[in-house]
């Protein structure tokens, strides 16, 4: 699509033709909100710009050994992933506006959807959403559309960032949230089952939960279904190599952050929102969906399907304002999963769990370091209680070259001394040993 610019003279001519001035174009914006000065510095030469950006980039701590998790993980990405996705045929970040013309892109999205379905053991997946948090919000709205009910039960072991996103999205909607408190690291059945009633739209849970603990929500799924409510499970895709899937638990909608599937960690993304659901709910699902069909000559072809859900047809009654997807990130996840294969994913998953288990044993052997939840199964993340405030310890460990974990005081009261530590397949025994020694020395 060519970009046609016009000169200031041409703009004035066009305005004169319709009898308007530049000011008229912005007349709808209240004077107080009109930006008159953007306070931009004067222009710089290319070299000066490069220098100052390099200076800024140096402020990032990219050399730290990463034990940070909390929803975003430092996994290994084979070089082949980037080399495949950066092929020029693929390297466009946007949904094509004439989709059926781009059969290759549609085929990739179709295969991505199939991969997400197999991973979660759900029946239908969409072409992706922005990130794990928006996917969870969209799932919640989807449940609201399906059930016509307003009450949502959400556990406080669901990623606090996601909960924050849900609350900011729904601030002006008439939805009623009830937050259940997890007990000893697990979803508290007593609290949740008691709250599910015939006004409940959905129960929102996460596995592994924010503290890394793993659970099986099958009983909650049954209880929710008995009252006509849905179960939404947010999951960590890498863990699905070995953990029970949302589909197997009886979840109605599964969501997840797809960053762990070959996407780099970066502040603000772009990340990848996974969403899959039971087939009966597909018409209430947001986002694009690619379907397989045959063309006029009987050959396999791909199309955007069920578009009547979307805003270019349904207008204000569309299932969502999402009219796009994270095509390139979805492709990356697909390529990553395809390269790893079924066994490779299982192996990665198992490695994460084994290394985390080793780190847990090594770190809890340090005097004064205690597990926060005793006797809980975890995947690749766990909470430790330190003898002093976690933020101080973390700051000291940064000086020693470690991003040791997430201080839980940031999201939970009375957890000042607690640190969330994540271990991926990338961490070596030596790195875990070095972390343990560094931790011991700063305590």
């Amino acid at each position, binding site marked *: 699509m060519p970009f046609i610019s016009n000169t200031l003279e041409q703009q004035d001519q066009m305005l004169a033709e319709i009898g308007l001035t530049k000011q008229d174009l912005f007349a709808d914006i209240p004077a107080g909100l009109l930006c008159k000065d953007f306070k931009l510095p004067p222009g710089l030469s290319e070299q000066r710009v490069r220098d100052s950006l390099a200076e800024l980039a140096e402020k990032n701590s990219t050399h730290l050994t990463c034990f940070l998790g909390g929803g975003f993980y430092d996994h290994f990405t084979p070089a082949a992933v980037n080399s495949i996705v950066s092929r020029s045929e693929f390297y466009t970040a946007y949904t094509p506006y004439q989709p059926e013309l781009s059969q290759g892109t549609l085929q990739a999205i179709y295969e991505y959807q199939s991969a997400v379905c197999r991973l979660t053991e759900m029946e239908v997946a969409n072409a992706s959403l922005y990130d794990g948090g928006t996917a969870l919000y969209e799932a919640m709205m989807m449940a609201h559309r399906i059930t*016509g009910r307003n009450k949502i039960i959400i556990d406080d072991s669901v990623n606090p960032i996601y909960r924050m996103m849900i609350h900011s999205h729904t601030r002006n909607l008439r939805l009623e949230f009830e937050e259940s408190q997890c007990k000893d690291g697990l979803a508290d059945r007593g609290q949740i089952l008691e709250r599910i009633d015939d006004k409940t739209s959905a129960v929102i849970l996460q596995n592994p939960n924010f503290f890394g603990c793993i659970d099986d929500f099958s009983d909650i799924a049954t209880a929710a279904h008995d009252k006509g409510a849905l179960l939404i499970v947010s999951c960590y895709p890498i863990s699905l190599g070995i953990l029970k899937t949302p589909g197997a638990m009886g979840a109605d909608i599964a969501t997840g952050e797809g960053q762990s599937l070959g996407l780099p960690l970066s502040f603000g993304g772009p990340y990848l929102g996974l969403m899959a659901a039971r087939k009966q709910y597909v*018409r209430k699902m947001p986002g694009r969906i690619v379907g397989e069909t045959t063309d006029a000559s009987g050959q396999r072809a791909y199309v955007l399907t069920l578009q*009547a*859900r979307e805003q270019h*047809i*349904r207008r204000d*009654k569309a299932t969502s304002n999402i009219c796009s997807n994270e095509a390139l990130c979805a492709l990356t996840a697909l390529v990553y999963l395809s390269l790893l294969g079924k066994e490779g994913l299982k192996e990665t998953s198992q490695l994460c769990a084994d290394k985390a288990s080793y780190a847990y044993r090594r770190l809890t052997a340090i005097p004064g370091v205690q597990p926060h939840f005793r006797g809980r199964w975890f995947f690749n993340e766990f909470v430790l209680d330190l003898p002093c405030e976690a933020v101080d310890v973390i700051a000291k460990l940064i000086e020693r070259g470690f991003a040791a974990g997430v201080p839980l005081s940031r999201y939970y009261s009375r957890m000042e001394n607690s640190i969330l530590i994540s271990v991926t397949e990338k961490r070596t025994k030596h790195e875990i040993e070095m972390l343990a020694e560094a931790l011991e020395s700063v305590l």
Partner: protein
Amino acid sequence: MIPKELRYLQTHEWAKRGKDSGIITVGLTDYAIEQLGDIVFLELPGVGEKVTKESEFCTVESVKAASDLYAPVSGEIVEVNESLTENLELFKAEPYGQAWIVKIKAEDIAEFESLMNAEDYEKQLKG
């Protein structure tokens, strides 16, 4: 085909009053069905739901568009045609018979009486 005994809305729904009853059966006129093209999905309201005259109560999806249907009268949905959702070809075959969509128990039967008759609806289509 515009059956004489039915009443109509500008938005192409037909309404039929049961004998001496306040139950109004609602469907889509064959003109609307033809305009929509192949209907691929019908989303029915739930029995017991309240509807308001001239507000949306149901959605039909065709290959071209998703369209809302508007209620001819205010009242309560007392029956929905579940079997129609599985046999969407009935829309074309029997728009005024087996392709009825819902039955509404009218709160005020005068609302039904004030709907367009067949003659006026035909005029609207021609105009």
